[in-house]
C-alpha cells in the first residue's frame, strides 16, 4: 500500500514538473507579450503610451529574456513559494489567486457531490431496470444535462431567475455579504447564489457517471455472488445495494480524478457568464492580457489540483477495495 502510494506520488511529481513547463509554454504561445496587449487595450480606449515607458516596463518585468531563462526563474521562484508578480495588478500572484482558487475548489467540490447524488440513484435504477422506460427516461435526463452547452444553460437560468423572481443572481454573494466573515446567514446567502453554477456543472458531468455506473453494475449483476446473496434470503434491494453496487462504486471512485479537469474547464465558462469570483474569469482575462505569471500560476495550480485529485481518488480506491489494498488481483 505505502509503496503503491509512493510510486503514484513520484509519478505525480514528474507530471507536475511537466505541467509547469507546458503551462508556461502555453502562456508564451500567443504573439506579443503583456506590454503589447497593454498598449493595444490603451489604444483601443483612445489613449496612448510613450514607447519609452513600455521599454522601461519591459526592463523591469524582464520580458526581454529568452524563454528558458524566464521559465527557470519562474519555476525556481515557485519552488520557493514565490509565484511572481501580476503585471496587470502589480501584485504578488499568490495574493491574487488563493482566494479564487478556494472558491473554484468549493464550487467544483459541491458540483462533484451533487453529481454523485444525482448519478447514483439514476445509474442504479437504469442498470437494474435495463431497457425499461425508466431506464430510458433516466438516461435521457442525464444526457440532456450533458448536452446543454454550459454557458447557454447558465445564461438561461440567470435570465429566468430575473424574469421569475426579479433577482439578478450574479457572483456568489449579495452585496452585504461580500466581505463579511463566514457565518450561517452568509453560508445561506452563498448557497442561494451557488446553486445555479453547481447545478450547471453537475448536470454536465452526471451523464458520464450514470453511464459508467450503469455499465459496471450491469457487469456486476451477473456475478455469482449476487445469486449467493439472494440465496441467503436478503431482500432484493439489499442484495443489490450491499453487493453489486458496492462493487460498481470502486471503479467510479477513480473517476473523480478525471472528472476534475472537465469540471475545472466547465467552471471557467460558467464563472465567466455568471461573474463568479473563481479562478476562471481571472484565468481568461490573464490569458487575453497575457499577464503571464498570473495565467501560468492559475493553470499550474488548477492542474496540480486535478493531479492531486487523481492521486487521492487512486488512494481512496485502494483503500476501499481490499483486493488492491492487499496487493492481490
Amino acid at each position: 500500500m505505502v509503496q503503491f502510494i509512493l510510486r503514484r506520488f513520484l509519478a505525480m511529481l514528474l507530471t507536475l514538473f511537466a505541467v509547469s513547463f507546458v503551462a508556461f509554454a502555453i502562456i508564451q504561445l500567443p504573439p506579443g507579450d503583456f506590454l503589447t496587449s497593454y498598449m493595444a487595450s490603451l489604444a483601443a480606449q483612445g489613449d496612448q503610451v510613450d514607447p519609452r515607458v513600455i521599454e522601461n516596463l519591459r526592463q523591469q518585468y524582464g520580458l526581454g529574456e529568452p524563454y528558458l531563462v524566464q521559465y527557470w526563474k519562474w519555476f525556481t521562484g515557485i519552488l520557493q513559494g514565490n509565484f511572481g508578480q501580476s503585471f496587470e495588478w502589480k501584485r504578488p500572484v499568490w495574493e491574487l489567486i488563493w482566494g479564487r482558487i478556494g472558491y473554484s475548489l468549493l464550487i467544483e467540490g459541491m458540483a462533484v457531490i451533487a453529481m454523485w447524488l444525482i448519478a447514483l440513484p439514476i445509474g442504479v435504477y437504469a442498470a437494474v431496470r435495463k431497457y425499461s422506460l425508466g431506464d430510458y427516461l433516466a438516461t435521457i435526463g442525464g444526457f440532456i444535462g450533458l448536452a446543454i452547452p454550459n454557458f447557454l444553460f447558465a445564461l438561461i437560468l440567470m435570465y429566468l431567475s430575473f424574469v421569475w423572481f426579479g433577482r439578478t443572481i450574479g457572483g456568489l454573494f449579495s452585496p452585504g455579504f461580500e466581505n463579511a466573515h463566514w457565518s450561517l446567514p452568509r453560508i445561506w446567502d452563498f448557497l442561494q447564489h451557488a446553486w445555479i453554477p453547481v447545478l450547471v456543472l453537475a448536470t454536465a458531468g452526471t451523464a458520464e457517471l450514470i453511464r459508467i455506473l450503469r455499465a459496471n453494475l450491469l457487469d456486476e449483476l451477473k456475478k455469482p455472488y449476487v445469486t449467493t446473496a439472494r440465496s441467503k434470503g436478503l431482500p432484493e434491494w439489499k442484495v443489490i445495494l450491499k453487493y453489486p453496487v458496492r462493487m460498481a462504486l470502486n471503479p467510479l471512485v477513480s473517476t473523480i480524478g478525471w472528472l476534475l479537469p472537465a469540471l475545472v474547464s466547465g467552471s471557467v465558462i460558467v464563472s465567466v457568464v455568471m461573474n463568479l469570483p473563481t479562478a476562471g474569469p481571472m484565468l481568461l482575462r490573464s490569458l487575453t492580457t497575457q499577464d503571464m505569471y498570473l495565467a501560468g500560476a492559475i493553470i499550474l495550480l488548477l492542474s496540480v489540483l486535478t493531479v492531486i485529485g487523481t492521486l487521492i481518488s487512486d488512494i481512496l480506491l485502494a483503500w476501499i477495495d481490499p483486493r488492491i489494498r492487499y496487493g492481490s488481483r
Partner: protein
Amino acid sequence: MHKLTLHRRAPVAGGLVAVLMAGAAFLATPALAQQQAPMLDALVESGDLPPVAERLPTNPQVVEAESIGQYGGTWRMGMRGGGDNGLIAKTVAYEGLVRYDRQWQGVLPNLAESWEANADATEYTFKLREGVKWSDGTPFTTEDIAFAVELYQDPEYAAGSWIDNVNNPVHLEVIDDYNFKFRFDEPNGMLLETMASVEGIHIVSLQKAYCSQFYPKYNENADAEAQAAGFTNWALYLQDRCAWGWETIRFSNPDLPVLYPWVIDQTLTANAARVTWKRNPYYWKVDAEGNQLPYIDNLDMRVSESIEELTLLALNGEIDFQERHIATVVNRPLFFDGQEQGGYHLGEVVPSASNTLVLQLNFNHDDPVKRELYQNKDFRIGLSHAIDREEIIDVVFTGQGEPFQVAPRPESPFYDEELAKQYTEFDPELAIQHLEAAGLTETNGDGIRLMSNGQPARITADVISALRPEWIDILEIMQLQLAAVGIEIELNNIDRTLFYEKRPSNDFDAQVWAGDGGIEVVQDPRYYMPFSDESVWAYRWVQSLNGTRPEIAEEPVDWAKQQMDLYNQIRASSDPEQRADLMRQILAITKEQFPVIGVSLMPNSYSIVRNNLRNVPESMFNAWLFPTPAPMDPVTWYFE
C-alpha cells in the same frame, strides 16, 4: 438643458476669456453660510473634522446646476471587470487644473483658477485655487505640481504623459505656492485642450507629502523599504502606492490622498466584487448656494466580467446612471421595454466619433502595386460609390444615422457638408467608371478585377469584432456590395495585439476602426491627415513627424507634408481663431485628397438614468478625451 447642436461657437480657450470666467465664478460665490452633508456633522462635532468653512478653499469652485439638490444616496453603476479603470476616470477622477465645459466648446477653470499664455504658446502661467486641500487635509500647492513633473520626467519611473512628451517636454517654473509657469521649447498651442481632456488628470495625480516617501530623492532608504515590502525596486513600490493618472493600481491604495469628490472605500483589487467610494469631506466645489458638493454620499461600482450580468442589473433598476459597456445598439429595445419595470429612462449620448466604420487602405503597402492602387484617389472613390450606405444603415442600425464620410460631425464647428457627403451616393456605374479610371479594367473568371500585376484586386480588411460586433456585420454587407463591382474584400477578424503588431510590421492591406475625431477635430485629426500612430492609413508617413518609430519613417507625399506643416502652425499658435482657420485649411486638403472611406454617421447612443436621479443633462457628448459623464458635473446630481 440646451441642445448640443445649437452650440456652434468657436472653441474658447486661453488667456483672457478664461480669466474672465474665473472672475465670474468668484463673484458668484455666495456669502451665505456653507452647508455640508449631514453624514459629516457628527465628525465635525467630535472634532475629527474641521468645520466646512475651513475645509473649503477661500474661493471654492461654484458649479451651476439645474436645481439645488439634497444630500445623500448611493450612485450604483457597473464596472467591466477589475481592469475597467476607465469608468473611474470618467466618473470620479476627472479633476485637472482645467476642465471642458459641458458642450465641449471651451475650457473652464478647475483647480487652476486662472491662466495666461504668451503669443507663441511656449509659456503658460497658472494660478491655483487657494486653500484647496487633498482628501487628507493637506493643502494642495505648486509643490505637488513640481513633484509630479519631477516624477513623470524621471526615466526610471515608467509614468508617461504629455508632461514628459519626448518631443516637447514641460519645463516647470514655480513662482510661489499658488503660481507657476509651464515653458515649452516648441510651441504648444494645444496645451489647454490636452489639460482639459482626461489627460489633464496626470499633473495633479501625485501628492508630494505622501508619495515622496517612496522616492529615493526624498527618502534615501526608499529602495530598501521597497525591497522590505517585497518589491524589486523603489519604482515598482512607488507605482504600487501612487501610480499616476488613472492607472488601475492607484485605486487599490486607500491611503492615497486625492482631489476627487469621492475617496475610495472598498478598493479596486483583482478580486473586488465591487468598488465603493464615500464623499471627500475636503472637496473644493460648492453649488450656487454655497453647499459643499457632491450631493451624493457614496458610489457603488459592481465589478463584473459578465456584460450580461450588468445588463440584468440595469434592467432590474440596480444601476442609477450608466452608458458605458451596456448601452449597445443591440440592447436598446431591451432597455426601452424595461424602462417601466426598471424605473429608469434613456438619456441621449452623442458620440464624438464621426463614423461607424472607417476603411483605411494602407498607403505605405510593401507591395508597390497595391501601394500605387491604394494611393489612387479614383480607386477609393470607386469603392465609396459602390457602397450602398442606406442599406447598411437600415440593416445594421435600424435606420439610425445617415451616409457620411470621415468628417467633423454636424455638432462640430468644423462641420463641412461637402466633406461629409462627397462620394456617398450609391452608384455602381459611377463606381465602375472610377475603378476603371484607376486601371482596374480586366476581370478574371469570377468577375474580380485584376490589378496591373494581373493579381485579383483583393483587399484583406483587419477588424477586431470583439470591440464592435457591428463592424463584422457592416463588412459582410460591404463584401457583397463591392463584389458586385468586382472588388473582393476578405474579412480578417483578429485579436487586438496582432492588430497593433501588424502596423509597424506593415503586413496589412486595410484596417477598420471607428471614426474618432468627429468633435475633437483639432485634438485628434488622425483621419484627416497623417497625425498619430492611429493614422493607420499613413503609418509610415506619420513616423516622419515626431512619430514613435522614426526608424521606419517614410517621406510623405506633398499634400500630406503640407498638412503636417499646417498642424505645426496650429501647435505654434495660442489663438483659437487662428488655429481654427489652420485646421480648416487642413480639412480642405483632406476633402481634396479623400484619404479614408467612411460609411455612416455614428448614431447617437443612450444612457440609462434612474428616474429619481436629478440634474442629469438630457443629452451629453461621449468620448475618451471628453470623459462622460464627468464634465456633466455628477457632483451636482442627486436623488429625489
